[in-house]
């Protein structure tokens, strides 16, 4: 808790409807965010039970300077992932961090299962366990709207919720935060569903005087100036992350048609520029972020004969355009948005959904599966059938779609096609076929995400390929991000928040950490994560990579399978030494 020497944890038991608050001094050595969440997860996770068992915890945490400096906007969620069976970690922006901060909670641990569908209404002086039976089955959009009307605190409120996919426990169901942001990856939505938890509303309206205004505001202004004056951040606001489509496509790093190709012949039709020119209607920001990277695109839909039209708006980003665009051979920006809409409303991770469908499309073409199973013929570029397939996944329509709802690893276990099931340790790939950095980074990353260590970024900046240097860079970045995520800074601003800036910010609010402390915190967190992974039975050396990665050339040319495995072994050696220290 800012200005206090402890971390305030709110424990919520969905089974009994009871809460408990603990002020934990011991957690301060984990700083906040992912550090505190990792420790709380370690204390409450049940390695002996299924990820969707009601006794598994959901942990949320904010950081030591959340919301009071620009772009420190994220909340971290940790849980046992139903998709991978191991460490689940996901981040979302929106208003959640600010409302937790001003409701007065650094972390929340949710355990147990409500008897009936419920939602939580959290304020600074109450936690309400409320009836959500009539909300069950509602889209994430719809339930947001009804809770907005029922709960007070507009403007100082965050509403996080699941859609039908979460209720049905699709293993990569997402949690929507304030309409346009998400805990997307690794299936937090399913864990909500397993607890009969449809939504959480948080109102933050606490009075919190600033301790040392002069010092604080001086640092605030410096950071604000850095964020708003530099080109680093302007790019995220301008066309946003979809700007990546063009360079990745030109360099052969854009996963296309289940990575059968690394270049998409219709890439220019789904580029950031095309979206900006044809669909972009609005930009928004998370609370406390002057950048505003949220891009809202619009398409027109005829919902009935006789010129009955509606305008549909959905958020878009690079990863969504990759997963529900190039990866599925979708040829226009309008159609990409048409696919994002059901994924959004049903509440699923867009990346996993797209990658799973890419596999299904190829498996269908190779006759590993039949139309009896897919119910509609799947082919690259066929938007209408993909929309149906997305609905079937969320509903677990039949045995085949139930398998799809458990991820591409599970589906290929049953139906074959492992060589083109594009996942790293069961987590579906991100949109960067950039080279060994991406492959190594995603495989060894604590949660198997490109965000664990930004391997794609190393691929881009490394002048000459060098195994040792690559392993060192990924290892260093993984630890550094543990520290950044303990604050919880939006990673888009990681170049703004260098060590000096972080220390200036923390020191100005009376947190007198040093550079060495930050290093120690990062290492402490990474070790705790690795301990959890081990307890959950994860073995780095048994990971198999899909052969497709080595068949289709990357941004950095053709890749060699043996080299990839060698890198993984080298990294494994490194963490074994690290853990023994």
């Amino acid at each position, binding site marked *: 808790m800012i200005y206090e020497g402890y971390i305030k944890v709110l424990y919520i038991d969905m089974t009994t409807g009871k809460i408990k608050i603990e002020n934990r001094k011991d957690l301060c050595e984990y700083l906040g965010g992912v550090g505190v969440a990792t420790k709380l997860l370690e204390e409450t996770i049940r390695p002996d039970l299924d990820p969707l068992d009601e006794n598994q915890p959901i942990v949320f945490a904010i950081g030591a300077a959340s919301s009071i400096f620009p772009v420190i906007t994220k909340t971290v969620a940790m849980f046992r992932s139903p998709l991978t069976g191991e460490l689940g970690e996901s981040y979302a922006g929106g208003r959640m961090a600010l409302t937790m901060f001003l409701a007065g909670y650094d972390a929340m641990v949710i355990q147990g299962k409500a008897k009936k569908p419920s939602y939580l209404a959290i304020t600074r002086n109450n936690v309400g366990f409320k009836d959500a039976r009539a909300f069950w089955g509602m889209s994430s959009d719809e339930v947001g709207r009804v809770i907005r009307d029922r709960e007070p605190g*507009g403007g100082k409120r965050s509403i996080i919720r699941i859609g039908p996919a979460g209720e049905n426990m699709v293993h990569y169901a997402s949690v929507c935060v304030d309409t346009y942001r998400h805990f997307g990856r690794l299936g937090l939505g399913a864990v909500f569903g397993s607890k009969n938890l449809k939504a959480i509303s948080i109102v933050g309206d606490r*009075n919190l005087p600033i301790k040392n205004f002069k010092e604080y505001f001086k640092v605030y202004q410096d950071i604000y100036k850095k964020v708003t004056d530099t080109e680093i951040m302007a790019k995220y606001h301008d066309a946003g992350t979809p700007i990546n489509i063009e360079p990745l496509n030109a360099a052969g790093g854009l996963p296309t048609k289940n990575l059968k190709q690394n270049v998409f012949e219709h890439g220019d039709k789904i580029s950031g520029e095309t979206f900006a020119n044809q669909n972009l209607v609005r930009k*928004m920001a998370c609370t406390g972020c002057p950048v505003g990277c949220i891009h809202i695109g619009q398409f027109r839909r005829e919902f009935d004969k006789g010129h009955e039209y509606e305008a549909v708006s959905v958020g878009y980003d690079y990863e969504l355009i990759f997963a529900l665009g190039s990866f599925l051979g979708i040829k226009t920006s309008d159609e990409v948005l048409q696919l994002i809409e059901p994924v959004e409303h049903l509440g699923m991770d867009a990346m996993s959904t797209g990658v799973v469908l890419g596999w299904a499309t190829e498996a269908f073409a190779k006759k590993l599966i039949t139309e009896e199973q897919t119910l509609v013929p799947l082919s690259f570029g066929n938007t209408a059938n993909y929309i149906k397939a997305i609905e079937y996944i969320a509903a677990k329509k039949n045995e085949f779609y139930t398998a799809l709802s458990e991820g591409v690893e599970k589906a290929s276990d049953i139906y074959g096609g492992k060589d083109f099931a594009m996942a790293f340790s069961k987590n579906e790939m991100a949109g960067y076929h950039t080279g060994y950095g991406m492959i190594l980074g995603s495989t060894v990353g604590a949660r198997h995400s490109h965000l664990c260590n930004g391997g794609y970024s190393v691929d881009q900046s490394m002048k000459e390929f060098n195994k040792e240097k690559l392993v060192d860079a990924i290892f260093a970045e993984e630890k550094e991000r543990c520290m950044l995520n303990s604050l919880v800074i939006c990673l888009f601003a990681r170049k703004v928040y260098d060590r000096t800036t972080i220390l200036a910010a923390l020191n100005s609010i009376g947190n007198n950490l040093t550079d060495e402390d930050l290093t120690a915190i990062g290492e402490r967190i990474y070790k705790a994560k690795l301990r959890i992974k081990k307890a959950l039975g994860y073995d780095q050396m048994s990971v198999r990579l899909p052969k497709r990665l080595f068949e289709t050339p990357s941004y950095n040319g053709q890749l060699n399978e043996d080299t990839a495995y060698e890198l993984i072994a080298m990294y494994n050696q490194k963490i074994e030494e690290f853990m023994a220290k």
Partner: protein
Amino acid sequence: MNKCIGCFTCMLTCSGVNRQNHSLSKSAIRVKTSGGLQGKFISVVCLACRDERACAEACPSGALEKRPGGGVMLKPEKCIGCRKCESACIVSAVSYDENENKPIICKHCGVCTRFCPHDCLRMEDVTNDL
């Protein structure tokens, strides 16, 4: 205001500079959505009424003095916390500080405009109306 991205930096800096508080609730400017996040952002802030000021007229204790150019200045020592100014302001630009028991009155200091990253807010030069 169509350019507003809803970052709330104006509110955070107003609360910070004018009330030395991290809370959003202490800000004299409020950015709201009309109809959830899918609706438009609107800003609610003192319009700096000239000639006649309803809030000052409603004040029974003379705590709101006319500010040259428009709007009012709060004399906290004269304020009795009756909240009449709050209801008198028909654009709802006066909110209430529950901790201080005083209304939150915009000083027209312009800090919100300085920290608006997308130039939605601006200051205007006005003539003295008093």
